[in-house]
């Protein structure tokens, strides 16, 4: 059986839903296809009747400021996400993570919608979206809804979307204000699949040398991308320095548990790397937040 019978390229959401309806259950949404097509070819998924490619729908291709938030279309290729000045300005963590996914050819077609839709617990794009407090806009034939990113995940590789019926239109993140900054980092292994053994993204708001608000996302620390809520509260109101980092590391171990994955990393190694990444992403976000403060004062 070929991977698909019909490959459809709707140019509007209504047309997409029309296709979805006419092909019934045996259809799937595809974007860059860098995950899905390989999964079907390698028989991890059954071939389908129709693939509905959403990359030609204009709504899914926009990057723009809307209602005090930055909207990033689900089908914007990853290289355009990482290259976007707006993304670099409002979501450094996202620019960093999308710039590291795969190689240039994969980034030229792969998308954020697919990174989230694939629902891996350590999707690089997804982890930084989570730290940036992203919400997703999801459309179906019945209309559209907004949903917090974390709610989009059900389990490893399983999204909360209704398969082949719902389409992620895009993600929106708050505009970055003065005194805020974010960062992403990951550690890879030179052997085996090109997915991080651990990744982490942080977002901080700093006022008068104190953290007023924090968000930290970690993968793969469970079946779905995870926020480390205890750390966020623990560092709030405090100044980032070595002492705080040392304590924060302890808190991290109580709120984030890693699994051992054979051939990739033991939980112990991940625990160790979590400390390394925690320091990296918190320090970088802190400095970025301070820098933006300074930039403001100079104006």
């Amino acid at each position, binding site marked *: 059986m070929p991977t698909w019978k019909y*490959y459809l390229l709707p140019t509007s959401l209504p047309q997409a839903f029309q296709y979805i309806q006419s092909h019934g259950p045996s259809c799937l949404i595809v974007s860059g*296809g860098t995950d899905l097509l390989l999964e079907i070819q390698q028989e991890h998924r059954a071939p389908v009747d129709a693939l509905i490619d959403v990359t030609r729908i204009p709504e899914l291709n926009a990057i723009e400021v809307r209602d005090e938030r930055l909207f990033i279309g689900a089908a914007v290729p990853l290289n355009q996400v990482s290259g976007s000045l707006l993304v670099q300005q409002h979501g450094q963590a996202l620019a960093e993570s999308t710039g590291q996914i795969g*190689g240039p050819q994969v980034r030229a077609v792969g998308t954020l919608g697919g990174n989230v839709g694939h629902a891996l617990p350590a999707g690089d794009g997804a982890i930084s979206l989570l730290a940036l407090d992203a919400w997703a806009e999801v459309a179906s034939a019945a209309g559209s809804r907004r949903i917090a990113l974390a709610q989009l995940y059900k389990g490893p590789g399983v999204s909360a979307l209704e398969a082949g019926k719902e389409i992620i239109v895009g993600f929106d993140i708050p505009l970055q204000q003065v005194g805020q900054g974010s960062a992403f980092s990951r550690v890879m292994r030179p*052997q*085996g699949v090109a997915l991080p053994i651990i990744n982490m993204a942080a977002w901080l708001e700093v006022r008068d040398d104190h953290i007023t608000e924090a968000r930290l996302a970690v993968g793969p620390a469970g079946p779905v991308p995870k926020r480390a809520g205890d750390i966020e509260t623990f560092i709030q109101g405090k100044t980032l320095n070595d002492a705080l980092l040392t304590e924060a590391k302890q808190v991290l171990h109580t709120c984030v548990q890693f699994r051992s994955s054979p051939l990739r990393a033991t939980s112990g190694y991940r625990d160790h790397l979590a400390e390394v990444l925690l320091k990296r992403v918190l320090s970088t976000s802190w400095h970025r937040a301070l820098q933006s403060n300074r930039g403001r004062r100079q104006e």
Partner: protein
Amino acid sequence: MIEIKVNGKDYSLEEKPGEMLADLLRYRLGLTGTKIGCGEAECGACTVLLDDSPVLSCSYPAVKASGHAVLTIEGLAEKSPKPVHEEGQLHPLQEAFITKGAVQCGFCIPGQIMTSYGLLLANPDPSQEDIKAALKDTLCRCAGYSAISEAVTEAGAVMRSEGQITPREVPDSVHARRVVGRTAHRPEAFSKVTGEAKFSDDLQFEGLLVGRTKRTYVPHAIVKNIDVTKAEKLSGVRAVLTAADLKHAKNHGLVVNDWPILVGVGERVRYVGDAVAIIAADTGEIATAALKLIEVTYDEQPVIDDPVKAREPEAVQLHETGNLLKHIKVRKGDVVAGFADSDVVVEHSYHTAMTDHAFIEPECSIARVNEDGRMEVYVGSQIPYSDRKQVADALGWPEERVRVIGMLIGGGFGGKEDIMGQIHAALLAERTQRPVKVLYDRHESLLVHPKRHATQIHVKVGAKKDGRLVSVETELYGDTGAYASLGEKVLTRATTHSIGPYESDHAKADCYAMYTNNPPAGAFRGFGVTQSAFAIESTMDMLAEKLGMDPIELRKMNALRVGSVTSTGQVLHESVGLLECIDKVESELRKRVEGNPFDPRVSDENPDKIRAWGFSTAFKNTGLGGGAPDEAGADVELYADGTVQVRTSSAELGQGLCTVLRLIVAEELELPAEKVDVLLSDTDLTPDGGPTTASRQTYVSGNAGLHAAKAFKQAVRGVLAEKYDCTPDQIEISSGQVFICGRGMSFAEVYQEFKSIHREPKVRYVYQAPVTKPLGQGGDMHFAFSFAAQAAEVEVDRNTGEVKVLTIIAANDVGTAINPLGLAVQVEGGAVMGLGNALTEAFLTKEGRVITDRLARYRIPSITHSPEIVSFIVEHPVATGPFGAKGVGEIVSIPTTPAITNAIYNATGYRVDRLPVDQELIARHIHQDKFVGK
């Protein structure tokens, strides 16, 4: 409909379900310059530009390209700002790839060039870092990454009208002659950069069927039943064959005929890649569907997945001859007395992983019964004559009724010596009387072909206080997997080299080559010595530390030199450049580093990164050796236009044999290199050159070419002396002409002279290499050895344990550098392959089942891993070698792994004794008790 512009031309094509852009380009438009290396978005070989952006055409739906413009390698030259290379139009990138020597096997090259072109369109003046970022996922297994990077930089300058393409800075050989020893470009380079070069899968035939193989996917079982009735009934299936259809040979094999062509009912399955049925069908989809309809039941057996287990007395015997393929022994002196006499003794055990060749071109064979009822097999093979014999045996035909036509080979590295699809394609072609193509996808390639042996090696060395080696003892277990392949030979080389390139009065080595239910292991660049060099070179560093001695001094003191006696009892009479290799690397090292290079240093840029150097040496035999007759035939023929062709069946797999043969013959005949054409690997047209293995081509096939050229000169002298009534020695050949008593005559005229007396202007010479002795008999086990030393600088992240190799300094004694440019890229590619062996590569199985069955799970080094490589060529000629040359292909890769792991030890104190390097273990070692995790 698909409305698509390809290379400036508009096409309107029917949509096909499941069709990717690469399929459309290759099979519908015949643009076979776009290659498929993996089909899983990992290798970048299939890169084309879609509206100026590089995309992977293997996983880009063809319909999605509708309405867009596609540029493939075939359309690039037209984009050239300035026209014409001597052989036709080339884009500056294409020209630069040739000039810099970036083209080796050539299979990845279209993808490299297209990815680079995409980069230059977006960024006309890229930095080194930009180039590395852009080419990160466009893999070259021949690993000419430095050459590629230089080519892109200069092509960019040409495109900006700011520069020109300059020759690569490679010194001539110290033994340089008129053409030998001076940089030359590959005769086949032009076709490789334009996409015209034909690899097997690029051929198209009328009525071509697709052949596929039913694999067992169980590691050990007895086949209970095979039911093919459903598959046979599927429309479009033309033939289904099982073992019951084998009327002649049941097995194949390079040394031992132990590998079933098809495993039949009641017979033993020995690994997951065993074949139980083959199918020919109208399309690949039908063939795949039919495979699923074949029902096979198995009586599964306990799996032997470890060579030590295989040797246990109660273990199931996988072959009639037992599980022991061979016990290999080296004995010199008395090691017990030697250790008693030693002041210090160091011992340690090592494990090396199975690794895969991961040539970018997967295996492909096409077979067809021709008009005369003969079988033609088109295949990129390292041993065409052996293919011919094995195919003929399976068909029950005389060998002459089979013709193996060697195609270009997209990388081999030892992995294209065994039979893969050749026999299956021929059986299906015989049955259907139609051409049949058996092309493996990456998954099947990884599953089926023989790997590098996983080994367990124990080393014990004893030395005097001053560092002099007294006694060395090694014990090796080699996992040769399900079938023998070249296992015995590989592990013999591992064993005889396990003492290292050192002289020790007492030496003892034992190796147990064991059958298991893992994929077979066979030849892989280094031929067993990669593994034993890692073990002995690590131990030498441990010994140096224990003695408080400089590791380079220790090696110098014990290094083999002229007059030394090897562990097999061979006295080395000449061509032992090891000390000079060590000196060359050492002086470069001392120039670069103040103080002890083996001390750890904190990086200036980042205090979390620690750097240190590591050192290693190696040696590797040239040629088959061990008493095996080692011969090669070559023809030299003169054509009417005055050009000469040299022919032998040896294979060009990217290593540069074509150029080497051309230079040798041109040198001897006093012709310009361009006047010599090379034809390889066709059993009808080229004489048997023997296997392309064991670094033997430059020496053995090169000698065949050289002697054939000499014989041809004799023939010319004979013919002309007779005609012009003078003595042969009054006839002189020089400067592209023949002089008879001073009167000049062109080669074209010489051709006419032959024809006028009805003599064919051609000769054949079968060269026999010096006789060698089998292991255990002392004397010359090999007729030549190559030597090398390397130093590697690593940077270890103390937090994460991540390792990066920054620099490699390499010195290789190759006798004579016949083609210095070709040698330069062999050195780089070999070092990068050694780096992969150390850091990235592990072919993993669990209870005989393959885990790394996709390229996504088996990483080979990319340009981002590629370090700065500084190369020194040492040239201690071999008297019997062509112009003094000996082997190159393997030695360049062998010392890299231990140089890296010794550097890691020097940086961190962590001794790597299991390959590949596990960064987690380094981090644990550095942080020890402070390590937070369990």
